[in-house]
């Protein structure tokens, strides 16, 4: 097993007794800054300004994203929108924020449609592992939560949004519990609270290492019991406006019918999530298949301002081996209860609870300076010493608290309770996004936004457990704001898009955006068309029907 790593594994095991109860140094602020500037992918100059739209000439964007923001719409120039579905509220996005919004609108008397390009619940929410923050501990308060998150975000967080997040933490846990979420408890019946990177007291609630799954499956089930009309496999292609700047609906591509459908809505809530699948600088990602930043592109064309998108979160512990798991998340909670990060020489080179961006930079540095472990696939990583957890906390702790980790690795004959796992930073979270006010309103009337698609809340670095809280708090809040301020129905036109198209005449790039699906998947908007194409590619078709008795 892992013969190729024999030497570094020996180093790791021989240094383990000395490391066991010995913390590694936490970088001071100068060292942290140096690590970020030299090694963190955000700081390597792989970015540029855009030349089209409201942000032209302003804050820079990663190159891959800049190209999408300047891109042209897939809407045919002669397409004329005419409403086929009329609804009061259109929610775009089927993850946690969209579902929380739908639940909040139930019983209001408004008609609600929720569109998602995949299925309800297929999202980054469902993949979140480690937990959700809420100031419930004895020495804790929403103010302390605020202070931790602000320092973690390098002071760039929008203080008003952050205050709302932290103040709403306890109430959000109550709301989720009432819906039926089961968070892990201690023997005394109180919620088990763990630390996370940058929390000054234990504050992270979890459901094993499936916290996002627990929240998403409950929200999904609850939404299915409402009158919300769920439009699965409906891809948001473009937003429509009333000709006077207000958003009044969207053009969705119905993948099964193979054609666009125009929705007229009095209010639109964008909850389209993140963009890890645009694979900045070729990094692996922990994000779901649909995380291609579509909402950023659509909102930008309407005249929304985007903020802090020069900042992405590279989660320090993405799996690096086996190859099939590359980029998948290994939750921070594993580090928070005692697994150390160790280089090929067996050196515990940094405190594993350093801020995510700093730790990611430190790991990349180890590899750059030749202290990484190279896999047979040519990737490099450092060790996460998972067997330490059972040594520190008793046999069976890892398997009991992290069944997801064990389950994923066991099919490759790796038992993380006995063998350390190899990690490398993975593109995990879009720190910036659409600018919103404290009521989740964007710069454009008629358009609200919530969750990962928004920017400002997390500053330049998000703490563990604040995104599941974000989608809960602001998913609900966006819906409440829509309820309080819902406009009358307006005309559906493509005026804003036409203006954007005039503006982009000055560039020659022919990119069509959003991307909708990962480049590597080859998936197209029109599923039927995609299949025609692959028919031509396939030559052999020696099909025989499956034998139903031979499972």
């Amino acid at each position, binding site marked *: 097993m892992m013969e190729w790593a024999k030497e570094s594994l020996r180093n790791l095991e021989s240094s383990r007794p000395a490391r066991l109860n010995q913390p590694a140094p936490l970088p001071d602020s100068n060292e942290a800054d140096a690590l970020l500037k030299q090694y963190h992918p955000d700081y390597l100059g792989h970015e540029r300004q855009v030349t089209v739209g409201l942000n032209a000439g302003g804050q820079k964007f990663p190159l891959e994203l800049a190209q999408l923001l300047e891109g042209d719409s897939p809407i045919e120039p002669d397409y004329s929108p005419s409403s086929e579905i009329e609804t009061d509220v259109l929610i775009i996005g089927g993850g946690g924020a969209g579902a929380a919004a739908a639940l909040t609108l139930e019983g209001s008397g408004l008609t609600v449609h929720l569109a998602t390009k995949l299925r309800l619940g297929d999202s980054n929410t469902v993949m979140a592992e480690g937990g959700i923050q809420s100031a419930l501990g004895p020495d804790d308060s929403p103010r302390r939560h605020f202070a931790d998150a602000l320092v973690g975000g390098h002071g760039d967080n929008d203080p008003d949004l952050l205050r709302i997040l932290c103040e709403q933490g306890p109430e959000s846990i109550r709301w989720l519990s009432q819906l039926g979420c089961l968070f892990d408890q201690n023997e005394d019946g109180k919620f088990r609270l763990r630390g996370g990177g940058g929390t000054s007291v234990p504050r992270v609630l979890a459901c094993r290492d499936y916290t996002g799954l627990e929240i998403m499956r409950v929200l999904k089930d609850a939404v299915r019991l409402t009158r919300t009309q769920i439009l699965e496999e409906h891809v948001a292609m473009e937003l429509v406006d009333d000709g006077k700047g207000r958003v009044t609906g969207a053009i969705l591509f119905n993948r099964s019918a193979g054609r666009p459908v125009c929705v007229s809505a009095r209010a639109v809530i964008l909850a389209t999530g993140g963009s890890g699948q645009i694979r900045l600088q070729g990094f692996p990602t922990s994000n779901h298949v649909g995380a291609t930043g579509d909402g950023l592109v659509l909102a930008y064309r309407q005249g929304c301002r985007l903020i802090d998108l020069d900042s992405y979160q590279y989660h320090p512990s993405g799996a690096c081996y086996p190859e099939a798991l590359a980029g998948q998340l290994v939750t921070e909670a594993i580090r928070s209860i005692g697994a150390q990060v160790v280089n090929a020489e067996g050196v515990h080179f940094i405190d594993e609870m350093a801020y995510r961006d700093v730790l990611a930079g430190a790991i990349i540095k180890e590899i750059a300076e030749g202290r990484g472990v190279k896999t047979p696939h040519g990737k490099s990583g450092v060790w996460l010493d998972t067997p330490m957890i059972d040594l520190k906390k008793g046999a069976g702790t890892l398997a009991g608290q992290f069944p997801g980790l064990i389950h994923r690795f066991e099919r490759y004959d790796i038992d993380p309770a006995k063998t350390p796992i190899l990690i490398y930073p993975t593109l995990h979270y879009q720190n910036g996004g659409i600018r919103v006010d404290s009521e989740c309103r964007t710069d454009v009337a008629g358009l609200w936004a919530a969750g990962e698609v928004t920017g400002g809340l997390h500053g330049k670095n998000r703490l563990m457990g604040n995104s599941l809280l974000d989608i809960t708090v602001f998913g609900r809040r966006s819906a409440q704001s829509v309820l309080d301020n819902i406009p009358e129905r307006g005309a559906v036109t493509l005026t804003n898009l036409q203006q954007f198209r005039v503006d982009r005449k000055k560039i020659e790039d022919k990119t069509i955006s959003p991307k909708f699906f990962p480049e590597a998947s080859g998936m197209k908007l029109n599923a039927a068309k995609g299949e025609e194409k692959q028919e031509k590619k396939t030559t052999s*078709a020696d099909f025989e029907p499956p034998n139903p008795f031979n499972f």
Partner: protein
Amino acid sequence: MTDKTVEIKISGKTIQARAGETLVHALWAAGMAESVKTGCAGGVCGACTVTLRYSDGRTGGTELACMKPVEAGMEVFPCPVEADVSVAPVAEPELSHLQLAFPTLNRCTKCGSCTTACPMSIPVMDSVLRMQKGEFQAVAEDFTTCIHCGLCRFVCEDKVKPHNMGLWIRRSLGMSQDIAIEKTDANAEQEWQYLLDKDRAQRLQRARQFRQSGRIEP
């Protein structure tokens, strides 16, 4: 074909795949992404259910395409499972409530297909037997890792719906919890004023101090 390539079949069509990659990535590379639904490609959304068999006679079964590495001689058949209608949970659930919500509960013939089909290694059939006895806490624990792919329901001859019942029980127990969240916040307003300083640098400095003790230090 080198040792780095394996040949697999998807719905009867032969494709070449790179050894070590998952079925989903093999399908992407072959331009056949649409043949199996995908959601998360990380083993937790349950979209990419497939059935497998092997040309050499090894036992196949059900799998998640995103988690299953390709193997030579593998034959893959898409097996999408539609979501079932949800049933509203109830607080303080009892066996009679479950029976009412899921009338097929007692039809289980203990064939074990559901346990075999589960890609998460949940002891599904044993858990159905626990449901029949009203052992809800144990059932909630069993279904902690359920991704609701629906395969246990899909393979059941007798229309038992194990995962739907598992979620119903978990939500019902969750709703029954008494979550008293009370906080004495006498200093709250003062602390917010301190932390929400208008000056960015001052705000950050104060946050640095405040997080040390959770209080405004004189």
